[in-house]
């Protein structure tokens, strides 16, 4: 079986879908990696289907790949890797904006911007993406008092 990104454990009979990506060419993704963004992502309202792809060579960074627009992919990362309390801090925002009572049913990832100087890469904490793995839906929410560009790597001393 050919190399799959992120679909490590393919169960008997699990449906795989082939998608086109400009970073990795054509790859197979499993159903549970595909998320529906009802209103797209802010600035891309028509792109409603994305695949969340792990990448062993670049962990803990993952890819949020548009299904249908091969050249559009975002680098994402779970903020707990550099801000252990982030999910807790925004749980009331998740509850009010998503209308859910259990933020622990959700996974939070943030979009990474990599400037020319890669060490200055930043995470967008103002617009985190909330994933609901059970319903395979996701949405980008807005947290007013979080920074738009949070440095992921500490400043050199």
């Amino acid at each position, binding site marked *: 079986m050919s190399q799959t990104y992120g679909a490590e454990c393919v169960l008997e009979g699990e449906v795989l879908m082939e998608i086109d990506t400009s*970073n*990795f060419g054509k790859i197979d993704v499993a159903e549970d990696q595909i998320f529906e963004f009802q*209103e797209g*992502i*802010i*600035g*891309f309202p028509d792109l409603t289907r994305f695949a969340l792809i792990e*990448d062993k*060579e*670049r*962990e*803990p*960074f993952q890819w949020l790949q548009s299904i249908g627009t091969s050249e*559009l*992919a*975002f*680098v994402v990362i779970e903020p707990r890797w550099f801000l252990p309390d982030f999910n807790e801090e925004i749980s009331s925002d998740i509850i009010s*904006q998503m*209308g859910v009572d259990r933020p622990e049913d959700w996974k939070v990832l943030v*979009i*990474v*911007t*990599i400037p020319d100087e*890669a*060490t200055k*890469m930043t995470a*967008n904490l*103002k*617009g985190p993406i909330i994933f609901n793995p059970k319903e395979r839906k996701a949405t*980008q929410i*807005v947290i*007013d008092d979080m920074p*738009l*560009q949070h440095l*992921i*790597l*500490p400043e050199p001393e």
Partner: protein
Amino acid sequence: MRAVYPSCNYEVDRWNSVYGEGFTFIPGMEIQIVLILTRKVGESIMLGDQVRVVVVDVKGHQVRIGVDAPREMKVYRGEIFDKIQEENNRASRVDAKELKNVANLWSRMRAGRRGSDGD
């Protein structure tokens, strides 16, 4: 009615005299103005059948606006929406090779930090 927000000053004055000041549009950006309404405190605007925008209070240059909308409708401050849109655009221009370097850097830094904790 489609319009292009003017990019030179004399056009901006003409624009402002017709539409009023205070829009935060980018010069040259094409926008669609559906309607411009003047409201008094307490009056409202309906957007479709489910969204009501009310002028709650006016104090000097600040307007308090109330929004009554279904729970699943997103309501954003315009400038924050614009900032996130711009950042999303910047972030979408990434290349896989660049990220490989970044991930290596990440591993090295974390290994370095563990080392300096005296492990």
